[in-house]
């Protein structure tokens, strides 16, 4: 699996999408964008169009699947949901992030653990 590690935002975005689907259940693109913006608050400025390449990739990897349905405003929308493999991927990625952030945390506050 070739995750492009330099593309940090992309990788982060994928994780955010997966987590959103995990917490909120099946969502359409607009719903995912709203949720990410809500959670991110001012700290995140999302260009909503960039969501779609990420969704394509997640779908190709088999981590999410899509289905057309009707949204709350009674519009046709494509709903994405996590697949079992997507859920496994989310768990693995979450652990990795926790490890990395803990490590970075130790680096930035080196005295604390000593």
């Amino acid at each position, binding site marked *: *699996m*070739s995750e492009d590690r330099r593309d940090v935002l992309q990788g982060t975005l994928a994780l955010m999408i997966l987590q959103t689907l995990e917490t909120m259940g099946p969502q*359409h*693109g*607009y719903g995912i*964008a709203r949720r990410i913006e809500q959670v991110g608050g001012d700290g995140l400025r999302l*260009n*909503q*169009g*960039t*969501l*779609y*390449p*990420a*969704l*394509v*990739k997640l779908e*190709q*990897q*088999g981590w999410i699947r899509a289905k057309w349905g009707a*949204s709350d*405003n009674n*519009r*046709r*929308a*494509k709903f994405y949901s996590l697949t079992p493999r997507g859920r496994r991927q989310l768990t693995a990625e979450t652990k990795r992030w926790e490890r990395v952030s803990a490590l970075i945390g130790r680096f930035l506050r080196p005295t604390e653990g000593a």
Partner: protein
Amino acid sequence: MKIRVALVRLREWLRRGRVDADLDAELQSHVDHLTDEHVRRGLDRDAARQAALRDFGGVAQAREAARDRRGFRPLDAFVHDVRYALRLLIKAPAFTAAAVLTLGLGIGANAAIFSLVDAVVFRPLPYPQPARLVAIWELVPTSPARREAAGPVSREIGTPANLADYRKARGATAIAGYTTTTRNVTGGGTPERLVGEEVTPEYFDVLGMPPALGRSFRAGDDRPGHRIVIISHAMWRERFGGSPAAIGASIALDGERHEIVGVTAADFRGVSQLYGGAPAVFWVPAVFDTQMLTNRHEHVLALVGRLAPRTTPAALAGELRAIAASFGASVGEGFSVDLAPLRDDVARDAAPLMLMLLGAVGLVLLLACVNVAGLLIVRAIARRRELAVRLALGATRLRVAGELLTQSIVLVACGAVAGLALAFVLVRWLLALTPVTLPRLDGVAIDGRVLLFTIGISALTSAVFGLVPLLQLGRTGTDDALGTTERVVAGSWAGRSRTALMLVEVALSTVLLVGAALMIRSLATLNQVPLGFDAHDVLTANVRLPAARYPDGNARYRFFEAAAERIAQLPGVESVTFGNRLPLRGGWTSGFILEQIDGSLPADSTTAAGFQSISPSYFDTFNLRALRGRSLSAADREGSPAAAVVNEEFVRRFLGAQNPLGRRLRRGPKAPSIEIVGVVSDIRRGGRLADVQPEVYLPAAQTSLYPLWLEQIAVRFAGDAAARADDLRGAIWAIDPDQPVAAIRTLEDVLTLGQAERRFQAFLFSLFAVLALTLALVGIYGVVAYAVGQRTPEIALRMALGATAGSILRWMLRQWLVLVACGTAAGLLAARLLGRTIESLLFHVTPGDPIAFVAASAVIGAAALVACLVAARSATRVDASTLLR
């Protein structure tokens, strides 16, 4: 994981219309939701929409980014390139036709020849674990008389006595013996003579092919009088309708009832069939008397063994040699055992020819590639400006290279398709042409492996072609190509590479021409070899009389005498003869003792000669000349003094200057003494490829002189002998309607068959050479025509300054013919170096045969001259005034 993603991508791409529409709808839906949101916050519809698009940040970009993420772009580009390549090919029909045909010929010829070679040489044998099967031969010290011709040892098949000892070898799970046999199958309908195998009990176990029905042979089945048989699946279907009741039923072989104990598997083939023999349809246990089981000189059983697990052929050979060493004096000094994988052994005789064909046809493909490369160079030049413009406008080199590569691939794919179609036709044609003596021909088919091979060639070729435009592109600085120096630079580079290609073409086709010339010379030499007998308009047949009805030699003689009389009454018959073996149809060699002049026997008796028992008309039927003494006559019967006629070679070898008439010989110390009463001219009994052997002709009527069975009959007709088979059969059946009349063939047919392999190889080599020559001519013409085109202004200038058309022509020809001469010289050198590899395929012609070399050079020289002349002539038609303006 990666493959899965790739498959998903491919599936999405194949449904890309729907996928794209889906994406558009999804993006639209997103924007609509955003718009709704803004409307809810109080904006009017239009303003809300503007705000939504702003928030979204570019629908078109998002769409493109998503498509890119799907990986459509390279695939789209490929499709575009393929379409573009096809358009280009269609727009240049002459180039396309030349290239596709050239490639098609090369690939088609290769696929066809590979199909043949694969079936004969490479394909595994049709038995389980075929690599574990080995053929076992005995290396037997030759008698001093034969040593000169045959070398110190001769390869012989095994003996039953030795096999009994070989069975002790632990390196083999089992070793079996087999030999082909023919039996009359009588009762019901036309009597037939069918081919079968006599085998030792282990045979089916060794091959790993137990009968599909009933049982295999087992120890004890090989006792005398125990008449059992295993029949082929085909015979079972044909004679017993595939009924299981066949087991326990019986068939009559040579008039004796044999109980059927088994039916072979449907795809089972006897080992002798692999060697090119007729398919066996029955198997009987080989039965040997005590004499055979103790005499180590009776080489009557071919041996095949299966290696024990974890044993190498070398280990088994060592073990067998150790066993053979214990035979001691009974086999003679120098006796040994040789062992080869069965597959290699089967292909032993055919392999040199097959590999040579593969090499020759490979050269043809190489030539085809060189030719197409030449064509592509010209096109690369022609498209140089276009490519340069595109590079200048910002196309990446990678993109343009990919496009060029695609064009090569498309071209090669077209060539491969044409080639494969051609291969199907060629294979059928080859099979119709191929001598039946080649082994395993029934396996020839264009199958997946051949397909793979062809695709492999195509891939290789496409790599070569891909290189040409890339090289060209690599050298093209865009400024340079767009600038004024273009023609000079491009022209000189392309000219040089095309000249080099032309040299290669000339050299390659010279090699093939020399090969073909050598083969044709061999065939011509062979056809000039005198047979010593007249084979025209002679029809021959075999009648193998069963012991049950014709128990002794006299009974058999009476049958043939009566048949001959009957046949002589047919209209148009000039002469009839019969014997044990007739010319071109085998023979019998026996040791003999030449009595000294005083009647005593010499101490050394290691002499052998062909012994044939014949009816007196033999010499007339085959037009042998009587040289001294008398011929045999009807008076030489049982009861009259034993008489024989010998040939010149006999006298030359055993009597020298002594007078042969009145000398006596005998086949053994206690055998009857026979007087030599005459000398006849020599014949090549085995055909043109065979040597003249010493021969002794015994009168068939004196049946006590020989242990042989009379079984062949020959009739000379005044006209078309081939059409008289039914008459011959009818006359024989008038004597005994139960006897199958087998192998009815004219002697000319037998002769043709014997030389079929030589003719086949000469024909194929000539075909390849002609193909190569044609390709080379196209190449030469292309180079010269191109060069002439490049130099038209120069030529126009020369002519304007007073050069005549003739002098221009001579000037141009001189240049090109020097090149052709260089190519030819290189080809001749290569042919000389390669010569040794085809030595075994030649007959009385050395690989360096000067006539073949001169002929090949002359052909290529003359052809090149014509090609140059045609191409160069257009130069002299240049209208100077228009060109110089």
